[in-house]
């Protein structure tokens, strides 16, 4: 065991962390002991997924099903950059709220009043940032060891002083030689490292890396290449197509302390849409399974070595990557499970023990309804049943569309109701797949092989739904249909509430037991970011970010018309609610 782990085993205090890392601490410094116990700390929201259990659950109940009807806006903050809306998750630490907005801006605000404590704006390499479509949004930050950590669209990791917003270190992490460009997802602190995944699923390049950098210095401690990094992966890409294969890990994974593992979801392979059709094992643009794209990977937290994996979409023919969503850690009957949603509308229930390689699937179930890209999923093996391949040519009404039945935002789990709350979205597309010419290897050029148009499912209009179900079996307790599919993350609370930030601007509080709408507030613009709860001066608040303009939200004007056609894509706010 390394010296660091020995110290960790003794349950770090803020002082010991400061001693260990030589970082000046204050009352609000967050050490790893606080992070690993975040699920027992309802006054704060310490990381993107709330805690390493990734439940998106608050154990606060001042605001509850009985009094939520009195919920009011407490304060509002408008960031100075919000192109494509605010897509991030706020974090709350000891009464201070931190959040990021577009173009690498970070804000620290008084959690009770919204008073600005500091602001940081990264100076970005705009040519590099704007060389992709993954720009200029930022989906969140990490806080620990007196620092606020931010990934940037030009491939840097930056540590800011948590108290002042001043730069502590600023490191270029991601080289463009592999065709990768930058980061938009939130980092997560794992022990004395900060872990983040790169963009790149639609870019001609390799290798879509996931990085762990030293929390104190920013030096890269390990790098895991999601494609092309080992022989098993390379052998699954015929004709060396991994060199143009995309990959990545653009959203935030988690850490499982019991096995000292990082769990991360990976992006789709390039080209998006392969003309091979049924013959994809031996022909086409990327013959083979294309490991480890559209997969879950489990890495040794100390070394980044691959412990296990499961490819949710072998030879992903639909752009249904696994980078979306959360890894929910759930125990039942003395057994540990890890839940992970896939964009194709499947919830995979894994055995949390990564000594199984590939991972052992305990169950897999569909939450999408109108799908026809497969006939189903084998609950015992997680294998896709009855694939609908998309060879060169036209294909009508393929469901779901490229946007998936599950988007990148998170669901929530309430341990008191025992229910998983999750959004599903239902629309389809007509697509024509073409035989794309591969761009130069490692070039970072866009690599698509199709054109498409979003359409309604056959026989009805596009729609969305929020369901409450047993997380392990998938059995539905209740389901609520939404005219416009919500695109933002959900929040469950001990007050028996589920907060649903809606696409049309409505912010709903549902009864977590029944699905009944108990409260709604029109925030004036759509949501596709995070929502959290925290306390400041002993009072509970609920915070949500607003703003419209994500890639998926672009479908809403053609599918639904107003209010989406006139909804601005360069506006967004942080709204904070409280009881009077």
């Amino acid at each position, binding site marked *: 065991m390394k010296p660091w782990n020995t110290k960790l085993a003794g349950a770090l205090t803020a002082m010991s962390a400061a001693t260990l890392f030589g970082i000046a601490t204050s009352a609000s410094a967050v050490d790893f002991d606080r992070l690993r116990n975040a699920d027992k700390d309802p006054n704060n929201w310490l990381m993107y997924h709330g805690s390493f259990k990734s439940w998106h659950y608050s154990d606060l109940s001042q605001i509850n099903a009985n009094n939520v009807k009195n919920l009011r806006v407490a304060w509002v903050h408008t960031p100075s950059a919000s192109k494509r809306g605010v897509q991030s998750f706020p974090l709350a630490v000891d009464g201070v709220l931190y959040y990021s907005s577009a173009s690498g801006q970070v804000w620290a605000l008084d959690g009770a009043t919204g008073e600005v404590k500091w602001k940081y704006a990264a100076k970005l390499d705009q040519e590099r940032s704007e060389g992709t479509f993954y720009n200029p949004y930022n989906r969140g930050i990490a806080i620990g060891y007196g620092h606020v950590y931010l990934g940037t669209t030009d491939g840097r990791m930056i540590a800011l002083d948590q108290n002042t917003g001043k730069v502590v270190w600023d490191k270029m992490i991601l080289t463009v030689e592999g065709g990768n460009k930058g980061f938009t997802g939130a980092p997560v602190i794992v022990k004395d490292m900060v872990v983040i995944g790169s963009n790149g699923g639609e870019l001609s390049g390799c290798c879509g890396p996931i990085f762990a950098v030293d929390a104190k210095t920013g030096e890269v401690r390990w790098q895991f290449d999601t494609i092309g990094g080992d022989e098993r992966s390379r052998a699954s890409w015929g004709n060396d197509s991994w060199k143009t294969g995309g990959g990545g890990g653009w959203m935030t994974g988690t850490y499982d302390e019991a096995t000292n593992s990082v769990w991360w979801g990976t992006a789709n392979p390039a080209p998006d849409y392969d003309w091979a059709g049924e013959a994809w094992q031996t022909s086409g643009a990327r013959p083979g399974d294309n490991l480890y794209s559209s997969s879950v990977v489990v890495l040794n937290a100390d070394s980044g070595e691959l412990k296990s994996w499961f490819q949710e979409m072998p030879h992903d023919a639909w752009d249904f990557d696994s980078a979306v969503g959360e890894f929910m850690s759930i125990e039942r009957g003395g057994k540990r499970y890890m839940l992970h949603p896939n964009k194709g509308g499947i919830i995979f229930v894994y055995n949390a023990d990564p000594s199984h390689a590939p991972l052992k699937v305990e169950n897999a179930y569909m939450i999408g309804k109108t799908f026809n890209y497969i006939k189903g999923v084998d609950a015992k093996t997680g294998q896709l049943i009855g694939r609908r391949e998309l060879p060169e040519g036209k294909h009508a009404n393929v469901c779901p569309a490229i946007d998936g039945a599950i988007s990148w935002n998170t669901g929530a789990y309430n341990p008191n109701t025992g229910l998983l709350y999750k959004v599903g979205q239902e629309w389809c597309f007509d697509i024509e797949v*073409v035989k794309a010419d591969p761009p130069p290897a490692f070039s970072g050029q866009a690599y698509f092989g199709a*054109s498409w148009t979003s359409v309604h499912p056959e026989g009805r209009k596009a729609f969305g739904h929020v369901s409450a179900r047993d997380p392990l079996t998938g059995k539905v307790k209740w389901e609520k249909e939404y005219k416009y599919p919500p695109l933002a993350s959900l929040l469950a609370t001990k007050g028996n509430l589920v907060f649903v930030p809606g696409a049309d601007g409505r912010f709903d509080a549902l009864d977590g037991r029944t699905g009944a709408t108990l409260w709604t507030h029109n925030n004036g613009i759509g949501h596709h970011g995070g929502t959290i709860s925290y306390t400041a001066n002993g009072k509970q608040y609920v915070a949500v970010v607003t703003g419209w303009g994500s890639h998926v939200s672009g479908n809403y004007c053609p599918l639904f018309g107003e209010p989406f056609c006139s909804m601005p894509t360069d506006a967004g706010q942080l709204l904070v609610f409280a009881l009077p």
Partner: protein
Amino acid sequence: MKRATNNTWRRVLSSGVCLTALLTPLGHSSALAADEASSTDAATAPAAPAAPPEKPKIDVRKLFAMNCSWCHDGYGMHAGKGPKLAGTTMSHEQVYLRIEKGKSGAMPGYGKVLSKDQIQVLADYIKALPSE
């Protein structure tokens, strides 16, 4: 409705391909001609110079699918992640520049990815899309 759209499509695509074959970007051609002139030595020039190599035809439909389709649905006929391109009020020159330079915070520039000929052909194609 769907049949009408498909028919419209065929017209557009065929016209785009035709435009591809017919249009030669003036700026690029001029530069090419100048280069050829300066490199020609009268003493060694053949009496009947060989015709310049024929440029490969650009399949604008494939080009669009490979580069533009993630944001512009239905080969530009429908809004998607990006706006509908058919019926754009931008001039041809503006469309060319938008493809080449991009738009800050909204669209990457393709000036370093695509050749001038490819950008020209895409601009021709987009401007030829029917507004209805």
